[in-house]
Each structure stands twice: as C-alpha cells, then as structure tokens.
C-alpha cells in the first residue's frame, strides 16, 4: 500500500501515450512498451488527473457523476490509484503544507 490519504496529491507521470478506443482508454508507456487498458471509470479518473489533484477531489467528482456517496467511491478509487502507482503511471505526493 502507498499510504495514500484523502488529501494526498496525485500526479500523472510523463511518458504515457493515450488513445480512446470505444469506451476504453488505451495507454502505452513509450519507454517500456508497457500497455494499460482503462475501462469505464478508470478512464475517467485518468482524465481527472490531467492536472495534479487530491484523492478526495477525484472521489467527489466521481460521486457527482455516478450519483453515489464519495465515501462509497473512495475504496475503489484508492485501489485503482494503487494499481496505477504500481505500474508507474502516477506519483502520489503528501499534501501541500499551507
């Protein structure tokens, strides 16, 4: 586990090419030739990561779009982000100090 929290900041890593194919988002890491296929809400989370954003903001956005409570979305979102982290598609930073 990454120690990710609600106020952790999630940032896309560079070097990933993306293309939408139907409902899926295909991703390729040009350095390693590694492919990822994100379907449904996974592709949407990647879009939300266009700019650095917090885990909580991602959960809020998905909760609005899928009409569920943020707390319901949170375990799924964190598990998915853990997968992206494992595959070196994102970095997770501690919250910015005010």
């Amino acid at each position, binding site marked *: 586990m990454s120690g990710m929290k609600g106020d952790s900041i999630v940032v896309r890593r560079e070097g990933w*090419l993306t293309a939408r*194919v*139907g409902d*899926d988002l*295909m991703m390729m890491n040009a350095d390693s*030739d590694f492919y990822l*296929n994100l379907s449904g809400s996974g592709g949407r989370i990647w879009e939300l990561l266009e700019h650095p954003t917090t885990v909580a903001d991602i959960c809020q956005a998905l909760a609005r779009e899928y009409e569920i409570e943020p707390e319901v979305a949170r375990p799924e979102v964190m598990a998915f982000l853990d997968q992206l982290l494992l595959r070196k598609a994102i970095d997770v930073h501690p919250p910015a100090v005010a």
Partner: protein
Amino acid sequence: MSDIALPELCEWSTTIPEQHSLSIKLGKLAHYGAAADFAVTEQEDVVLRIPGVAGFHVSAGGDRVTIQAEDIADPLMVRAYLYGSVLAALCYKRGLLPLHGASVLLNQSAIILSGSSGVGKSTLATALARRGHPLLCDDVCAMDMNPCGVPLLWPAFPRVKLRPDVIASFQLGAAVSYTRAASGTKGHFGMAPIQCTAMVGRPFPVAAVYALDPPSGDKVKRTLLSAKDAFIFLDSQAHRGWMGRNLGLHGQLFRHTAALAAAVPVYRLQRPCALERLDEVVELMEAATHNGAAAEAVGVAIG
C-alpha cells in the same frame, strides 16, 4: 524506377507525384558481411540483411532502396522481401501503418484479412478475388491513418503468395513464379497473378478487419471483438512491428493502431479447414458487407 525486374507490379499510366516516387537500385552495402540483420544508422537509414538472400538499405526519407543480392539468391525471394519487410520499412518511414494482411475491394471499401503467417490470409483473399472482388494487396496493407478518422488503404500489386497445393487447387495456371527452395512459414511458395482491375492510383476506405484464426472445426462464423481485443489484435499484427519500434516510432504505431481499432470493426473469423468450403466464408463476408458493416463501424467509433 528500379534496377531489378519487378514483374509483379503493374504499369503505371499516370504521373507520379515526386513525394510518392521510389528509386530501387542495385549496389554494394557498406560492411555487408559483418552487418547485423537489422540496423538503424546514425542517419536513420534502415539496413536489413537476410542471409542467403540480400541486404536492403532504405534511405531515411523512404525514397530510395539499395539492394545487394547475394550470388546464390533466388530472385523471387529477393522480391518477396522487397514486397514484405522493405515495404513495411518504407511505410514506417512515410508515416503509414503497415498491417500484416491481405485486402480485397468489397462494395467499394477495403476489407482486410489479417492474422499470423500461414493462417490462410492469401488463400481467402484469392477466393474473394475469384468471386469478383479485386485484390488490393497481399502481405502488407499500407494504411494512411489520416486525421479525418477514416483509414485509407493504398492498393499494392496484384499477386498473392500461396503454397503450391493451394495454387493447384485454385488452378491458377502457368503464370506463377515459384521459389527454388522451401523458406519461411509458407515453405516452398509461388507468387500467383490475380486480376488487376483495382490497381488505380487512389486509396480506398477500410470497412472491416477480419482476424483469422487457424482454420478448424465446422463453423463459419464471425464475432465482433471488443475495442480492447481489437486493439490487442491489431497491435500484434503491425507488420514487423519491432522494426517500427526500433525506428523510435512507438508513438506513431500506437496512435495508428488505436485509431484503426476505434474507426473500423474487427471480427474474429472462424472457418473450417476444407478449401471446398471457402465459398461459404466468402458468402458470409459478402452478406455482412451488404448488410451494414459501415453502420457497425460507426457504432464502434463512437462507443
């Protein structure tokens, strides 16, 4: 313009724009004996060496090919590599997607038959051509993934590479050139002429890709692949995909493959082994094309 005879190609009656021209010359390649089988030079030229056949040098701009044929080389093998691996290199250099497959013109659109070597692409393409659907290419499908989103296939030359037993079953006649010895996945093969009516200097929109399984079972059936499976299949069938990646064209290859998967339906095609049942396969493809393959293409594209 070519130093070597290329009897498989058609006469071209129109003026070829400068950017489309290609010069093929015989010459000596530097360090040929010690060269690797594939290399990209500092100038980004491509060098391919096929032991026992020839070395091929493709200029960085994709406008010149130099061939050093070995003394023992079978001229048909030299041409087969020129029409295959070298054509793929030229496609990469010119920003085209070379898909491993054969293509015929069905209802004014290109239908692509793709799959692993020896799976029966050329055989099925020949069966389609004999039913009046002009052959557009065999082995390398050169596609222009233009920004408008409709993939366009450029016709190549009206010849198919077939095993001698398949040539005999189609009764393709005496105009076939055969290799001297067995080689590659087809073993001993012949280059057979097919009708030349579609060899006009314009590309055709691609309506469908058929992913061929090895023939087996009793069914003739096509199944639409999911977007993900379509992408995975097409990615696996980029002609000499390793070459594109070694040329640093990962991004181009990825974008083109994804665009093709998004724009065109990809069907898994199951069919029996028996050549006498090829007509059933052809009939299925004809009926599917007339019954709205284009509508399904839109469905896939917009998800």
